[in-house]
């Protein structure tokens, strides 16, 4: 069965609680973004929640939009890499190979969504957190790019388990850390190529769906569902 991993994010359900951010941080061994790092504007967040204010005081509304890597089918970051450190897998994942990466940072420059991050410093954790690191995920050294992998370690683990049992991966058998942590179930992960899957059905059954920056023609694998808002008819589309 062909596979294209993808995600649907329902903005109507998103509360901006940032649980996905924290879950991702923990799952993927992302160094702690201290205050210092934020001041340097070098925070690494594989998924981030952007917040926009709408309207004038006192009628202010906060809008949230979680942004992970879009895993574009035609990703601008890939071709500019001189060393094939990032490329498209057959499962529709925009892969980052840390070992090949030499840190030209062109991929990040050419990413319209700003979802690629550079390790400016050697990553460090407080001693107390050393046993918290996920053993299935590489710790990236300084000088390489990193980005959301759609929790590739979970995909592989599930696939291995399925192939050991001689079956196919079932829909909903696993999910990414962000989707797992989302208290409102706003993030749904799955195989877009499988029309039976929940994510494909959500993508198909809605008139609220849109992709970020779709005019660039990159065909992102992350689909957003517009917020249902009786007051403001359009929002995130034109920020």
């Amino acid at each position, binding site marked *: 069965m062909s596979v294209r991993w993808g995600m649907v994010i329902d903005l109507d359900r998103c509360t901006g609680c940032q649980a996905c951010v924290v879950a991702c941080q923990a799952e993927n061994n992302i160094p702690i973004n201290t205050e210092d790092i934020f001041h340097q504007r070098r925070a690494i967040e594989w998924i981030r929640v952007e917040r926009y204010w709408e309207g004038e005081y006192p009628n202010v509304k906060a809008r949230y939009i979680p942004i992970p890597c879009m895993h574009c089918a*035609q990703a601008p970051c890939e*071709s500019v890499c001189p060393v094939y450190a990032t490329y498209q897998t057959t499962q529709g994942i925009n892969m980052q190979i840390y070992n090949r990466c030499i840190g030209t940072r062109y991929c990040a420059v050419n990413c319209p969504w700003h979802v690629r991050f550079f390790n400016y410093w050697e990553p460090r954790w407080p001693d107390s957190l050393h046993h918290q690191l996920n053993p299935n995920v590489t710790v990236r050294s300084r000088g390489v790019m990193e980005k959301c992998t759609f929790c590739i370690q979970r995909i592989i683990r599930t696939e291995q388990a399925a192939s050991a049992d001689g079956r196919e991966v079932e829909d909903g058998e696993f999910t990414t850390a962000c989707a797992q942590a989302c208290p409102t179930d706003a993030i749904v992960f799955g195989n877009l190529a499988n029309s039976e899957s929940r994510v494909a059905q959500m993508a198909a059954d809605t008139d609220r769906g849109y992709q970020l920056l779709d*005019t*660039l*023609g990159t065909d992102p694998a992350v689909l957003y569902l517009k917020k249902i808002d009786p007051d403001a008819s359009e929002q995130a589309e034109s920020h």
Partner: protein
Amino acid sequence: MSSHGHSVPRVWSLSPREIATDGTRRIRELGSLYRLGIIIAAVLAVVGVISLIAGPLLQGYSDRSVWTYVTAVFFFLMSTVAAAPCLSVALRLARGHWRRPVNRVAEIWAAALIVPAILFFVLQGAHPSSADRNSIWMGWPASPWLWSSIMMIALVVCGYAFLYISARPDFAILRDQVDSNPNGFFARMAGPWRGTLKQWAVHDRALSLVGVFYIMLFIGMMTIIASDFIIGMVPGYHSSIFPVYWVVTSFQAAIALTLVTSAVLRKFGGAEKYLELDQFWGLSKMLLAFGLLWFYFWWSEFIITWYGRMPYEVNFLKFMFFETYLWLFVMVIGFCFLTPLFGLMWNFIRRSYMGPTIVGSLVLVGNLADRIRLASMGTTVDDIYAHYFLEVPDTHFPGVFDVLLTVGFIGAAVGVVLVAMRFIAVPSIWEVTGGIWLRAQRQYKKAEVIVIGKPE
């Protein structure tokens, strides 16, 4: 590159007297071929005007696509006739001596500037206002019509002024040698020219000033044409290099035109003593360089668009190069780039009469094809107010009138130049004469050498 004999051009052994006699003879005696040429050109011009009226003018301005071939021939004349004087100016600024006989051959084409100017004004009707669409005028009042027309008029006036200033010393020679009638044409044109040192100094200064001004006007006008007729008419055609491509390919066509004109003048115009291997060699080196530049500017646009891969860019590539006008484009790349490159990279071809002439003619054909392609692009996209065009229009094919008017107006331009040659000496008498003082043939021990003076 390997050792070849020193060819000593004959022209440098001529005396000023002989040059003047030669120059005036061409004005005095008109062959039957010349008359035949004029008649053919006149017939073509009439055919052209009739097909312009019967074709596009009768159909009116509402459908822009019927104006495609009027636009194309206008483009072609701008890139050849109007660009040729620029070549003359540039050669003068570079101060080589080989260029002296070539200058007039290039700048005589300024006489035909009136033809593209007329076409330009006829085409203004097919031009929508610049409001609410991509345009360098940003919706200024009366744009683009008023402002581009002013530019065009300035260009034409400047071109004629340049030709006149350049020809003035020759008019004086002709006044004295051919037609001594004090109220005759030459006397009127030459005015009080006696060739005093002061007159020459003013003449030199004026010639280079007007010349530089002409180049600047030409580049400005070509930028406007490129934007108004092509870039602005293809929504999403996001290309800042196009005006440069447009100007550079025009210069290439101008060099080709000068080469072909030189060959014709050698064959029929009695100029074989003046337009010699040196001139063909020099011009063909330039043609080779501009062939490479053609590719460079095309490639700079292509690689960016190809690499961008945004939907409108993909459409644009299909439209411009790979689907709609594929065959025209293949013709252009073959004639404007591959022919000069593989033809002229050999010194023995560059240094001949036949080789550069053939390559030059092919470059002109390629340039015409390019202009037809671009004109067709500019007139066939329906919604010019959109940001991007998402559907690739169909290929636009010419009708009978289109072909006739293209040939007709090119013939008209040639006709105007033929008439001008009746009054203006080609090659220039004063310029060739001025060169012979600065060259000498000497014996350097055992070698015959050519010595070139560099007064400045």
